[in-house]
């Protein structure tokens, strides 16, 4: 049985009709129509589905959409004008920190939230944070370098 739910995604209100067991990742992609949020496992491991719920990273594949009423959801599409995200995108581009790009939105969303709070990230701290996001292509090295380059300019601002 489907019910009506009001979701706030990237500042926009969506009235959607969904079943209680629909995952947030599926609803964002198939109902709201935002496909930057990727699904790599539906097992809560890969991090490709990471979105912000009230500005904190969360796994959209482990969240039922129906639980999201009254919360603010932000996807990569909603970070288009966010300066930290833009700096990350530029650094990823310059350091070749993506190959197939399937994991990339999850990394960017996770990092955009983290960099706003991190004070002086070390390579070890960056790697530690990134254990929640899997990448099968890059071997992480260029991602770590890209993050550190952004941290050098963005952190503590």
């Amino acid at each position, binding site marked *: 049985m489907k019910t009506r739910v009001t979701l706030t995604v990237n500042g926009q209100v969506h009235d959607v009709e969904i*079943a209680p*067991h*629909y995952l947030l990742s*599926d609803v964002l*992609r198939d109902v709201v*129509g935002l*496909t*930057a*949020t*990727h*699904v*790599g*496992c*539906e*097992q*809560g*491991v*890969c991090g*490709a589905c990471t979105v912000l719920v009230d500005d904190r990273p969360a796994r959209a594949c482990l969240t039922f959409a129906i639980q999201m009423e009254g919360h603010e959801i932000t*996807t*990569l*599409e909603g970070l*288009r004008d966010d300066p930290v995200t833009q700096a990350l*995108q530029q650094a*990823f*581009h*310059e350091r*070749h920190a*993506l*190959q*197939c*790009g*399937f*994991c*990339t*939105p999850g990394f*960017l969303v996770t990092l955009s939230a983290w960099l706003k709070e991190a004070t002086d990230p070390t390579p070890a701290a*960056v*790697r*530690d944070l*990134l*254990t929640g*996001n*899997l*990448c*099968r*292509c*890059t*071997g*992480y*090295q*260029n*991602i*770590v370098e890209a993050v550190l380059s952004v941290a050098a300019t963005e952190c503590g601002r």
Partner: protein
Amino acid sequence: MTRDIPDGYVGRPMLRREDGRLLQGRGRYVDDIRMPGVRHAAFVRSPHAHARIVSIDVRAALELAGVHAVVTGADLVGEVADAVVSPPIPGLVPTRFEVLPTRKIRFQGDLVACVIADDRYLAEEAAERVEVEYEILPAVTDMFVALADDAPKVDDRLASNRVVHRVHTHGRPDDQERDAAFVVETEFHQQRQSHVPLETRGCIASWDQGREHLTLVTGSQVPHPLRTQLVRRMGLRDGQVTVESPDVGGSFGQKIALYREELIICALARRLGTPIRWNEDRLENLQASCHAREQWCRTRIMADADGRILALTLDIVEDFGAYCFYPANYIAEVVGIILTGQYRVDHYRYDLTVALTNKCGVGPMRAPMAIASWVMDGTLDALARESGLDPIEIRRRNMLSAAQLPYDMPGGETLLDVNIDETMEAALEHIGHARLRADADTLHGCGICNVVESTTYGSRFYKNSGIGGSGHEAARIIVEPDGTVTGSVGLAASGHGYETAFAQVVGDGLGVSPDGVAIRLGHTDAAPYGMGSRGGRGGTAGGGALYECARMGQEHLLHIAAHMLGLNTARNLRMIDGRVEKLVDGAWRHAGVGIADIARLAYFDPLALPEGTRPGLEFYRTFDPPPMTFSNSTHACRVVIDRHTGQLTITDYVVVENCGAVINPLIVRGQQIGAVAMGISGTVLENMVYDAAGQNLSSTLGDYAIATACDIPMIRIHEKATPGSRTPLGLKGMAEGGVMGAIGAVANAVNDALAPLGVRASRLPLSPVYLHGLIHGHAISQH
């Protein structure tokens, strides 16, 4: 053949043009594509490893509103032909199997039925309502057990589970034993792994009833060969099928075969007349997509008192799982062919055995021959230990020098354009000579692995090895009426950066700026028929074809330009960045015409073209690479093992690589690091485990661990490149050697660390449990 263009684009670390859309989340992966009226598929899969299908009751599933069809094997008989793998290779048993089993399932996760419904949730719910009665049969999950005479038969049509037995002999290896000062046998056991692209498989198939045309959108490495298989199995003609591979979230060899799921979706789209979508979930991907690498090797090396190799033999046994999507000899065969690398071996034999088991079928995974470098250098390390000789010195003594190349390898290929003698010395410099001592808490080791990577296989290789098929690649270049350029080639990208790199190649070949070059890939209607992306062939075969095609195009453009300039020859003309330049008094000067002017003539004013020149500007060219091209590298690493926990830490990692001329060093570097990371991940973490009953115990990414950012060390890469001598631009290919070297370097380093204890690790993964068991003298089972 090297390029003669000053300041060309090839060789520059240009930033990737693919990145813009991917960084915004605007990529177009299969699951991002919306199609009106699409229906969704889910599969009913076997919970057992080996069972006869007694009955299937689909009534409860069909009762759900929104369920349109539930199809079993019996429904597809006569509609879709069996998969037949029967190349004429001595020692290879021909095999065939149905698209959807009618009588028996062969592994846990095997297909039983397919449900089509309005949405995915509903399709899955309906699939759960399909009732299947099974008669459970004994399962065989160990390849050695499978080879025993009384083993349960995985494929009832065959005489046994042994689908390959082949022996290749060069010289007289057995006769050398009497002269040998040392004879050493060494074992190597590589565990079952899987590719784990972050994007699982998936497809959308639609059938245009009016045009009788099938369109399959799917992430594929090989759109044209996939189409060939599809038309054969479905009884269609080539021109009736379009295969489109959009953005692909990684493939690593998993997206080559025509699997049964995609074929069933295509058949049902045709039958039902509606578009159908299927997205594999991660559970299906880990249980039932494609596995890889499960091989056991034993070498026997005979050497003289100085450590010079007199003879070498290799036995390989490989577990191929339940179904042969590929000729079952092919993966192990390449190990046998390239094993000896840049070492001189006069007497050699390899002996391949491949077994079917009740596990998921296997296929090539990034560096199918990955085990080879570990086996070769691990054998030399074992010889060093036995003889007391220095392991590096043994490598040096057996190494072929530049003067000895080309060299007819005992495996049958001709080795050339490699310089391991140089990469090894450089790697030793970079890793340093310090010998760290073991103490009460830690063991220290340093490992070296030399890699000869077979990168691009030409048609001659396939012919010689009896596999059949072609190694050529095809390129088409269109200079459009506005003077911009569209290039295409029969490859398909999944993170390779082809759109950027190939624009550089076309830019240099044609004499235009890459900015004005669009590259179209992965679409059977847009690209000419090519063999697709596999191995390290993309740059060499695809780049080579495009470069030669572009050169041909430039010649034609300059012929027209000469006419426009009133010259009777184009000899003193060239094109740079779309401008025609003329050699005047030893200096190149802009001649006043450009590619847009030429295009205008060719398309809209053909009577102004030179006599005998036809309108239009389209160029097509194929390129068949030499039988085999080789890159090489040396990997060196240092490890520390915690004696108390068995925990392994890689503290330094160096690669010195010779992959020839490179199109885009930024992209190449990314591929090198990615390959090493995949090799380390497979060496220390990944393990696809089945229990004795054939239940897959590694069906989530929690259970099947792949490397995270904390598992991969900083990788230092240095180049010692020499160009390929027989390919356009001196390209050789790369992207797999990193996997080969990582396995060997890490495993050799671990064994160096363990040497003082008199034990040796012969199995992967090098997990803490396994290493702890070795250190403390009690071998604990990995599982």
